[in-house]
């Protein structure tokens, strides 16, 4: 049994989600190969070779893969993947974009966002916004799977010494091209990897008031998230959204401020170890999942909390 893991990267560094994906592969068992597809990815390949448990790194360095357009990367993965028992990718926007295309090309069903490995062919995944957990078994020759990073503790980024092998195959479907991108800049830890997350909702009232959360987050070394209500109201950019349709987080501590706790939001954070809710509505559903609830006006509670921590 040999498993192919698609590395998540930006042509410069390996994204942390790759380490969680390799951890899922290790639970399945067998040799683990990592595919790095991109342009100018020498450094990424070197870093991938050092990941604990990886035995081989395949590098497809080609202009066609520069922005990891699925039309070009999926045929490459499908071609390489035929010889593997499993193909795994992190359930990031990239992984979700590319992997179903690979599965369809291989004519197999995909299993999305697994949170645990029961055996080499059986996996658990949440459905209905996390309100049910399905156990799914696959009899596909190649099992195509995306991995929810928060379901698996990452493997060590150092300690491995895998062989690096170049892949010559170049696929350029010519149906799509990259135009540009706008990335939100932040000095705070990445939302999905942070140990502490402070999130604001509609109760923040406006974007300016998020400065209170940023001040608290900086003191705690936390990332700042938001509910869909706060994003839709234009308080903060949408890549801060936590929920079924945004990012899934499972930090040690999640502080929900001015968030009512709709099903869709809970789907993104209810696996957090400790949940704190600060809300002035004591009937808010968030209190049903919070380990510690404080019924208070957030504009008084947050500055006080910042002082005390």
């Amino acid at each position, binding site marked *: 049994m040999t498993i192919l893991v698609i590395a998540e990267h930006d042509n410069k560094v390996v994204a942390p989600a790759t380490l969680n994906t390799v951890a899922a592969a290790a639970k399945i068992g067998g040799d683990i190969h990592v595919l790095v597809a991109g342009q100018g990815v020498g450094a990424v390949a070197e870093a991938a070779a050092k990941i604990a448990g990886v035995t081989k790194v395949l590098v497809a360095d080609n202009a066609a893969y520069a922005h990891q357009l699925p039309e070009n990367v999926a045929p490459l993965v499908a071609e390489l993947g035929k010889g593997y028992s499993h193909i795994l990718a992190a359930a990031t926007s990239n992984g979700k974009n590319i992997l179903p295309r690979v599965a369809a090309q291989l004519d*197999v069903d995909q299993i999305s966002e697994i949170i645990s490995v029961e055996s080499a062919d059986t996996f658990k995944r949440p459905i209905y916004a*996390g309100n049910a957990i*399905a156990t799914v078994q696959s*009899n596909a020759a190649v099992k195509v799977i995306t991995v929810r990073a928060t379901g698996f503790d990452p493997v060590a980024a150092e300690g491995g010494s895998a062989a690096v092998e170049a892949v010559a195959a170049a696929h350029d479907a*010519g149906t799509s091209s990259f135009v540009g991108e706008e990335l939100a800049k932040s000095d705070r830890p990445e939302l999905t990897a942070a140990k502490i997350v402070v999130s604001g909702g509609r109760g923040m009232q406006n974007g300016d008031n998020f400065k209170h959360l940023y001040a608290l987050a900086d003191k705690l070394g936390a990332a700042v998230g938001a509910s869909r209500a706060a994003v839709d109201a234009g308080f903060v950019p949408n890549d801060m959204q936590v929920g079924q349709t945004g990012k899934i987080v499972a930090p040690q501590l999640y502080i929900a401020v001015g968030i009512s706790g709709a099903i869709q939001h809970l789907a993104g954070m209810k696996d957090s170890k400790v949940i704190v809710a600060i809300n002035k509505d004591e009937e808010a559903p968030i209190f049903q999942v919070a380990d*510690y609830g404080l019924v208070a006006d957030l504009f008084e509670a947050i500055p006080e909390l910042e002082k005390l921590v």
Partner: protein
Amino acid sequence: MKVLVAVKRVVDYNVKVRVKADNSGVDLANVKMSMNPFCEIAVEEAVRLKEKGVATEIVVVSVGPSTAQEQLRTALALGADRAILVESAEDLTSLAVAKLLKAVVDKEQPQLVILGKQAIDSDNNQTGQMLAALSGYGQGTFASKVEVSGDTVAVTREIDGGAQTVSLKLPAIVTTDLRLNEPRYASLPNIMKAKKKPLEVLTPDALGVSTASTNKTVKVEAPAARSAGIKVKSVAELVEKLKNEAKVL
């Protein structure tokens, strides 16, 4: 140009579903069903393209039980011109649905196919990508902006770190993200008019598509419940508990 929109009948997003006692699935008896929210956004985008004079005809398609006709009628009331139901009582996987949609795409030859990015029941986020693979078209997933010009479509996509824009050759597949648009409501006169619009019913057999699957759902269970928390009286007490009881600060 012709636009094809795929819609799915799902449990209404406000319903808190319950797992059946025998762990065979989720209890859907007597539960309110609706159009998947992402599909509503897809229909809205198609209607806006028609209003801008870009689209000439909107065909809405659903794969599902005969009751999915309700959701197709909703789409017709929102502005779609005609509907196709591929009737199947089984619970199909995304790949099977993509294959059925591919057969409809072959038949209808649309220039643009719009789907939701994921259905809120299975949470798969696969069908659009799979349909793109099967038809060999470019894909613009998680779209927050769609602009058709000539024989290409520029799609701004929501990605983990921000936004990315790609240009796709038509025909192409687009899947909608939440912020693409705000869907309108159907007016009563339009709901009445929608009853007269054509709705064709097909079957997987008639389309010559096998819906066999490589996946099997063995069990569905409720997630582990969180133990009940406590309410603290003050910020000071909260900090004290986080430091000494939960030890997370």
